[in-house]
C-alpha cells in the first residue's frame, strides 16, 4: 500500500506529466483536451485491466520505455473508436486501424510519440534528472493483454501493480482515454528522494 503522502506525491507527478501531454495533444488536434485529477495506486495486478475499461476492451495503445535514474513505462490507451476519430481529424480522411492505411498508422504513432514524449520531458524537468527514452511502440488489441505485458516488464517481482493513471477527455466527450505511468519500484524511491530534496 502507498501512504497518503506517497499518493499525493505521485498524483502531482501524474498531473504535471499528463498536463504537458494534454497540451501537446490539444495543439496537435486543435481541440480542447481535458484531464481529470490523476490517481496513484498500488493494488493487485488483477485490478488494473478493470481500471482501463475491462480486459477485453478494444484499445489503441502506445508504449514508451523510460531509462536512467527514473525508469519505467508510459502507456497511452484510447478506445479504438476515439483513436480513429483523432487520426481522422489529423489526416483529414476517414481512418480505421483495420484498413492498415500507412499514413493513418504513422499519424497514430506520432500522436503517441508527442504525448508520451511531453509526459517524459515534464517528469525530467520537474525531477531535475535526465530521462532516456526509446522510440515508442504501438499495439491495437485487448486492454488486458496490453497492461499485463507492461506490468510484467516493469514490475516482474511484485504482486501489486504500482501506477499513476490520468483520464483524458477530448472535446468534452464522455468516452475517455488513459495515460498510465508505471515506474519501477526503485524509481519510486528516487522520485521521493528528489522531491524531498535529499538527493
Amino acid at each position, binding site marked *: 500500500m502507498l501512504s497518503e503522502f506517497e499518493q499525493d506525491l505521485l498524483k502531482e507527478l501524474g498531473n504535471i506529466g499528463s498536463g504537458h501531454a494534454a497540451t501537446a495533444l490539444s495543439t496537435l488536434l486543435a481541440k480542447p483536451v481535458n484531464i481529470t485529477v490523476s490517481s496513484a495506486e498500488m493494488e493487485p*495486478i*488483477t485490478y*488494473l*485491466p478493470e481500471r482501463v475499461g*475491462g*480486459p*477485453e476492451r*478494444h484499445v489503441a495503445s502506445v*508504449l514508451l*520505455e523510460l531509462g536512467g535514474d527514473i525508469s519505467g513505462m508510459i502507456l497511452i490507451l484510447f478506445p479504438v473508436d476515439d483513436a480513429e476519430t483523432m487520426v481522422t481529424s489529423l489526416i483529414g480522411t476517414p481512418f480505421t486501424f483495420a484498413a492498415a492505411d500507412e499514413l493513418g498508422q504513422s499519424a497514430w504513432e506520432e500522436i503517441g510519440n508527442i504525448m508520451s514524449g511531453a509526459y517524459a520531458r515534464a517528469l525530467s524537468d520537474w525531477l531535475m534528472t535526465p530521462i532516456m527514452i*526509446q*522510440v515508442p*511502440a*504501438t*499495439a*491495437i*488489441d*485487448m*486492454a*488486458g*493483454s*496490453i497492461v*499485463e*505485458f507492461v*506490468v*510484467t*516488464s516493469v514490475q*516482474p*517481482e*511484485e*504482486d501489486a501493480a504500482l501506477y499513476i493513471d490520468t483520464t483524458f477527455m477530448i472535446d468534452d466527450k464522455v468516452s475517455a482515454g488513459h495515460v498510465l505511468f508505471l515506474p519501477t519500484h526503485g524509481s519510486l524511491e528516487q522520485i521521493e528522494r528528489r522531491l524531498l530534496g535529499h538527493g
Partner: protein
Amino acid sequence: MAEVLKIGIAEWKQTTAPNRLRTAGLGSCVGVILFDVRTQVAAMAHVMLPDSNIARKHQTIEVGKYADTAIDALVKSLNQAGASRLQAKMAGGAQMFQFKYENEAMRIGERNAEAIRKALKAHRIPLVAEDCGGHNGRTIEFDVATSVLSIRTVSVGTKEI
C-alpha cells in the same frame, strides 16, 4: 446450472463439468489448463512469468503467477480431486509490442510457454493442444465436459483447439 469461472492475472481455479473456465485478455501471459477426461475435473492458471526464483525472498508467492509453481499447484490439487490421467492445453504467450530495440523482456511470452512445456514434461503430462506466440491478445474458455478450448482474438475471431 453450468457456471463460468473467471480467472484473473496470476490466479488459478479448479472446477468440474458442466462448468467452464475462462480468462480474458491474455497477452504475454499463458493460460494453461490441466484436465482429466474420466473424472471431468479441470483447473486453469493465468501464468505471468516463467520462474518463481524471481520473486523477492520471504515474500508469499502467488502460485498462479509463475509457470513452475502453477503447474505444481494444479497437479497437486487435481490429484487430490481424484484425477488419474492428466492432459494439458495452453494458449497465449504473445509478443504484444514490437520495439526497434529488442531485449530479453520482450520475449517473455515465448519464455512463459517454454517454461510450461518443461514443467509439464517433468510431471509427464502430455500437452495435447496449444496456440501460442504471435502478436495478438487472446481470451480463452475451456469447457470441462468436452475438453474444448475456444480462443478469441480481436483480429482473427474465434477458433477451437
